[in-house]
């Protein structure tokens, strides 16, 4: 059973953002991840199961498989009801479930929307068929409920009117008059969705509307629909795979042609389903994904299934070849996902255990593989472990294959000087997942860090941590819990890293009851002014950032001076002068 990966962790952490009802509503309905709003297939799904069972994959898989079983029954019954062929329905369900396009949807929790969406589409089609056949008002209401709920599952639901329209025009064209309202609602939702969805800015999600691009992407998906070929995995296929692909492709084309020759309208409905459910992803030329075919290939399976049931003797060879080949790809894809997810699980569980063994310590990871980084760290999986700070050890990003559109591993790397200070002070431990178990390699790294990096000052110091005490200059009071008070003037020595541009500080002023009003903070670097800010008396968090003064020699240690006025006089005259309580200060 595949564990969690990538986007799953963002959804698993959703509950951490909820403190009151407003947060809950925002978590359910605010646009996230390329501006999508999928309360049923993502928000409620993850929030509920994570709340009930924690970071456990089994309940998610059970719900996913249960939904897919329901889908298979809905397919079987729809084909049977419309064409009268139960064998055709069974064949359609089997041809669909074996397709490798479903492998990712069934083994990656975040792709549950691809499973739930066919469910509401099929349920809507069932209700429509009942209405077309009987004129039942209840069926019409049911269809509208499915239609509207579908928008909370996947925004691609806007194509439902096209599918419903195909069913209507092919079998009961006299009932076309109820279609415009469906199209109107879908159109309104499409406009609303486009206005809400923030363009990602990434080339991967850029929309390409030119006809050649659309046709090229359609062709790619059409070839992928046999479930045997994938453009990102198999570029030069061995002959046997090409033969399998041709056999399945010719079999499918023959099946549809034969059905059309016999004037079986179901073939047209299958093709309409394929084209309609695929259409919304065609502009995503740079984001061709096999799991986007989960719903579309059902259209082809419904058509081919009926043909196979009508002429089983002709269907045996292409069906067996298709099932064997796409089944093999499905298995390989599932195994690949499983192994990657297992690596994630081992690393996550290892970090959790390490944090239990060394509470309060920062955990630095070295030798993290690209798969582990992109599958786990990039989506902030470790924030699910409350109070655990996990970063990459210096140089830990070098091995990771770059995907700028997804994130930047360098953001997770602890600076060399910081790492040396923290490891030598016992504030941080270094672990390596190389070789299976997460191994404590702090001793090795201590030796390495102190020899090579220990002489470098940290670029940013945490004033409250003993590890950085040697970099603090004048004016600092003793550590007080998680903070360290600065007097009216403090200094700190830091060493800039290449590309450093700003001086920054994170400080705090507790509730002072308005005793001293606004506070002025002035920063100087090597005596040159770097910024002057005023902090209002009702702001407790003081986050300041300003450009580094021109003309500094960044190759040498820098002295950052901070002047704070007015100060609080603790216990009246003669007590400690308290400026601000500091966390981090330095240059970036």
């Amino acid at each position, binding site marked *: 059973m595949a564990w969690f990966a990538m986007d799953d962790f963002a959804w698993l952490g959703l509950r951490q953002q909820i403190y009151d009802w407003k947060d809950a509503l925002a978590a359910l309905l605010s646009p996230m991840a390329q501006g999508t709003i999928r309360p049923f297939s993502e928000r409620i799904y993850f929030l509920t199961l994570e709340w009930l069972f924690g970071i456990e994959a089994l309940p998610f898989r059970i719900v996913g498989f249960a939904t897919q079983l329901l889908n298979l029954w809905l397919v079987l019954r729809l084909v049977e009801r419309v064409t009268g062929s139960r064998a055709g329905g069974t064949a359609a369900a089997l041809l669909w479930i074996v397709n490798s396009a479903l492998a990712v949807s069934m083994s990656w929790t975040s792709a549950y929307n691809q499973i739930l969406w066919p469910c509401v589409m099929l349920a809507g089609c069932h209700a429509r068929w009942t209405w077309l056949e009987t004129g039942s008002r209840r069926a019409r209401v049911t269809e509208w409920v499915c239609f509207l709920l579908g928008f909370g599952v996947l925004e691609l639901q806007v194509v439902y009117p096209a599918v419903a329209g195909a069913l209507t025009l092919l079998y009961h064209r006299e009932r076309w008059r109820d279609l415009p309202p469906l199209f109107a609602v879908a159109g309104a939702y499409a406009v609303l969705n486009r206005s809400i969805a923030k363009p990602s800015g990434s080339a991967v999600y850029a929309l390409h509307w030119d006809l050649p691009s659309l046709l090229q992407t359609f062709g790619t998906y059409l070839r992928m629909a046999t479930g045997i070929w994938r453009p990102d995995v198999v570029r030069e296929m061995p002959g046997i795979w090409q033969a399998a692909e041709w056999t399945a492709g010719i079999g499918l084309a023959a099946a549809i042609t034969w059905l059309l020759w016999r004037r079986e309208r179901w073939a047209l409905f299958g093709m309409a389903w394929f084209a309609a459910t695929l259409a919304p992803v065609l502009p995503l030329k740079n984001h061709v994904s096999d799991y986007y075919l989960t719903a579309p290939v059902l259209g082809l399976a419904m058509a081919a299934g009926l043909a196979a049931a009508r002429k089983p003797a002709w269907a045996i060879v292409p069906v067996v070849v298709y099932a064997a080949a796409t089944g093999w790809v499905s298995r390989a894809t599932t195994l690949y996902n499983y192994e990657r997810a297992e690596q994630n699980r081992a690393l996550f569980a290892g970090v959790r255990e390490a944090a239990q063994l060394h509470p309060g310590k920062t955990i630095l990871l070295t030798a993290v593989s690209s798969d582990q980084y992109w599958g786990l760290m990039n989506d902030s999986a470790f924030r699910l472990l409350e109070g655990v700070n996990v970063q990459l050890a*210096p140089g830990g990003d070098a091995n990771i294959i770059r995907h700028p559109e997804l994130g930047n591993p360098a953001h997770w790397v602890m600076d060399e000087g910081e790492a040396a200070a923290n490891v030598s002070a016992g504030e941080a431990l270094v672990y390596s997942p190389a070789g299976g178990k997460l191994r404590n390699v702090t001793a090795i790294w201590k030796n390495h860090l102190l020899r090579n990096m220990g002489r470098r000052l940290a670029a940013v110091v945490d004033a409250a941590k003993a590890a950085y005490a040697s970099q603090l200059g004048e004016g600092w009071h003793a550590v007080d819990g998680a903070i360290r008070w600065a007097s009216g003037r403090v200094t700190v020595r830091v060493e800039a890293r290449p590309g450093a541009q700003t001086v920054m500080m994170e400080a705090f002023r507790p509730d002072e009851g308005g005793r001293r009003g606004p506070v002025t903070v002035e920063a100087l670097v090597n005596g040159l002014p770097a910024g002057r800010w005023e902090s209002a008396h009702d702001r407790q968090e003081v986050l300041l950032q300003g450009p580094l003064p021109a003309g500094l020699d960044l190759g040498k240690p820098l002295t950052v001076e901070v002047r704070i006025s007015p100060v609080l006089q603790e216990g009246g005259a003669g007590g400690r002068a308290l400026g601000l309580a500091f966390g981090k200060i330095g240059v970036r």
Partner: protein
Amino acid sequence: MRRVTMAAVAILALSAMAGCKKKQATQYVDDGNAQLAIAVRVADPKTAIQLVRGFYDVEDNAWRWTAPKFAVTLRPPNDVAPEGAKLFLEYAVPDLFLQKVPETTLTVTVGGKALAPEKIQKAGAGRLERLAPAELLKSDMVTVEFSLDKYLEAGSVDQRELGLIVSAVGFQTGQAAASPAK
């Protein structure tokens, strides 16, 4: 009465035993001090923790590309001869590398002390050998660092910066240091 007392004592004892904090079992973490190897086959997952910097993923179960700077932590041999222990690096330079970088110099430091550098001008397999002075090998671990002055820039053939193809690195054992430092 005595039975009641004994039963009470037994219950208390059992409660105390149950209340004793169990030793925390670790299933996914090896938190003990790792026993370091004297020499490392870079593809061997058991010794991969010693590759502290600049080694990319294993390829063909045999070797790794390195970054321009790479480092390994080794356990010095138990009986180091007075003249020192022989350090070796097994590496390969592909033709592609030399087409773009005709000559590069590999510098080696052991415990922070530089040994004689090596000029690399030929494609194919190579073996670097240097004598590491005994005084650098007195602690229970030593970090050996390698650095190339010229290398394949990121984007020239790969999105990573590429140095050498390395298969093994370590101290030679089983024989006395044979050659003087180059």
